[in-house]
């Protein structure tokens, strides 16, 4: 008989050796690193952005003229530009995304779903610069001709492309929410004589409400932060939008301003600091949007845990 394993048994407590302890320490550190990165990002935005408030008065920041060469740093046109493009994108993407999600999750036969889902994933994978490129060459002329505007490079053009960029997130999160609605809800509605459409409209979609809401928020969050596409197709005119009509005029967004101007400013200049302040504002907006979205998700999870226990 071979020697018993007893002879191989390590002395008590030695089986967690040093190598393993080091690996586990590294894994733990990697886990914490996410927090570190968020703090680092915030720290460096503050470090480069805060001097703005010493150099430019608050009143001058919340003014309507952005013309950095002559030291006009009014942020309102940029904020307005971002808002109007995002608003347009939301109005386009929400109904379209929801309807597509309902179609994919509830109506499409299996084979069609297997085609549509990867296709929408491809849309999510398209580099924003490629979308911007096509937007300039194909969409902008179309917008100019249909709307009979002097230029096709308008907020509306940006909205269309941003809607396209927000769609994959929107569709997939909304579809997950619809999928999570228990089969039994649907069966009960159908058993009561509801048509499939009534079931979808009155039972399934309302039951998936929170998930759908989250999808919308994440989609919007994505749209506000989009840079290259917007910069390439919105015409980059820093003027304050004065109503919905401005949707069909050129605008300039916060993201596009940073991307277009940061390359040309002197490090440490006021213009440089203001651009970092714009970045800081974008950071805080996305932080809030995502915090709210994750609060919804956490609350939902808690509720289901309560129901299960």
């Amino acid at each position, binding site marked *: 008989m071979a020697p018993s394993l007893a002879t191989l048994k390590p002395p008590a407590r030695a089986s967690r050796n040093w190598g393993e302890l080091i690996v586990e320490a590294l894994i733990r550190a990697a886990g914490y690193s996410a927090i570190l990165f968020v703090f680092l990002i915030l720290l460096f935005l503050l470090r480069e952005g805060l001097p703005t408030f010493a150099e430019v008065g608050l009143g001058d920041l919340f003014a309507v003229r952005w013309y950095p060469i002559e030291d006009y740093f009014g942020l309102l046109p940029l904020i307005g530009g971002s808002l109007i493009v995002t608003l347009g994108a939301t109005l386009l993407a929400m109904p379209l995304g929801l309807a597509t999600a309902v179609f994919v999750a509830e109506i499409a036969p299996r084979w069609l779903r297997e085609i549509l889902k990867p296709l929408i994933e491809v849309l999510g994978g398209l580099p924003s610069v490629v979308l911007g490129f096509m937007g300039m060459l194909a969409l902008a002329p179309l917008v100019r001709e249909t709307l009979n505007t002097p230029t096709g490079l308008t907020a509306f053009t940006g909205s269309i492309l941003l809607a396209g960029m927000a769609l994959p997130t929107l569709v997939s999160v909304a579809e997950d929410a619809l999928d999570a609605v228990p089969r039994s809800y649907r069966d009960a509605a159908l058993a009561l004589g509801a048509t499939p459409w009534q079931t979808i409209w009155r039972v399934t979609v309302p039951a998936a409400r929170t998930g759908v809401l989250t999808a919308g928020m994440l989609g919007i969050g994505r749209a506000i932060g989009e*840079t290259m596409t917007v910069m390439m197709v919105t015409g980059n005119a820093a003027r304050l939008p004065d109503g919905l009509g401005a949707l069909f005029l050129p605008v300039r967004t916060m993201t596009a301003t940073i991307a277009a101007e940061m390359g040309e400013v002197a490090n440490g200049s006021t213009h440089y600091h203001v651009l970092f302040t714009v970045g800081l504002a974008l950071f805080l907006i996305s932080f809030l949007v995502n915090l709210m979205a994750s609060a919804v998700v956490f609350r939902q999870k808690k509720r289901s845990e309560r129901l299960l226990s």
Partner: protein
Amino acid sequence: MSRHTTQRLAFALLTLAAIVTTAPIVLIVGYIAATGLPAVSWEFLTTMPRDGMRAGGIWPAIVGTGLLTAGTGLVAVPLGIAAAIYLAEYAKDTTLTRAIRIAIINLAGIPSVVYGLFGLGLFVLFLNFGTSILAGCLTLAIMTLPVIISTAEEALRAVPQSFRVVSISLGGTKWQTIRRVVLPQALPGILTGVILGLERAAGETAPILFTAAAFFLPQLPGSAMDATMALPYHLFVISTQIPGMPIQIQYGTALVLLVFVLSMNLIATVIRARARAQRQW
């Protein structure tokens, strides 16, 4: 209007929405392929740009995007997988763990141009890396991290708990269990997430604008401390900054970028499908 007419109308509208969402994707990809293909030749792919980029090839941009993607992977993949292992296998439900999750969600939501600002502030200026491949890769890596972490964590969690219990009951330590059973089983899922994350990094422009990208460099970068050309930035430059740019070259560049990015997408899809077919649980 009867219920059934309503239903027919509603379903028609939903179908229309799905068509409106997906048809442009086919149109865009198809159009770029058709218009760009004639411009793509061996010379276009392997030579330097000439005549103020209005002629010649895009070789340095291809190499640059390859280097940036690989460098990003080098940093983000080990870090992301380790963080995912921590969340899936070690972390208990504490306030700290929640803070990590919120941090990851927020990292995923930060606009790419803000990553660019951050990279400029920390890597280019504060750490004095200059506009360089190194600074670009580090910036892109942090941006890619949340994608890798969340998909890898999901893949790890999908591995049945019973495998872990069995391995531990056979005298395995926690790490042995993770390395020998959990990780190999989660590998296809992790790989899919890694590729999707790097796909995004490869196509991004805004984060490298002020950290790594060079407008025009008629040579390949010599070290990680050099700036580089990159496909997405190059497409941006030639389509917006250079008057009289031949349209063929623009579409050709867009096509090469698309192929680069979409082939990564395809690889991820294939890995996922194959793993699903071969899975033993």
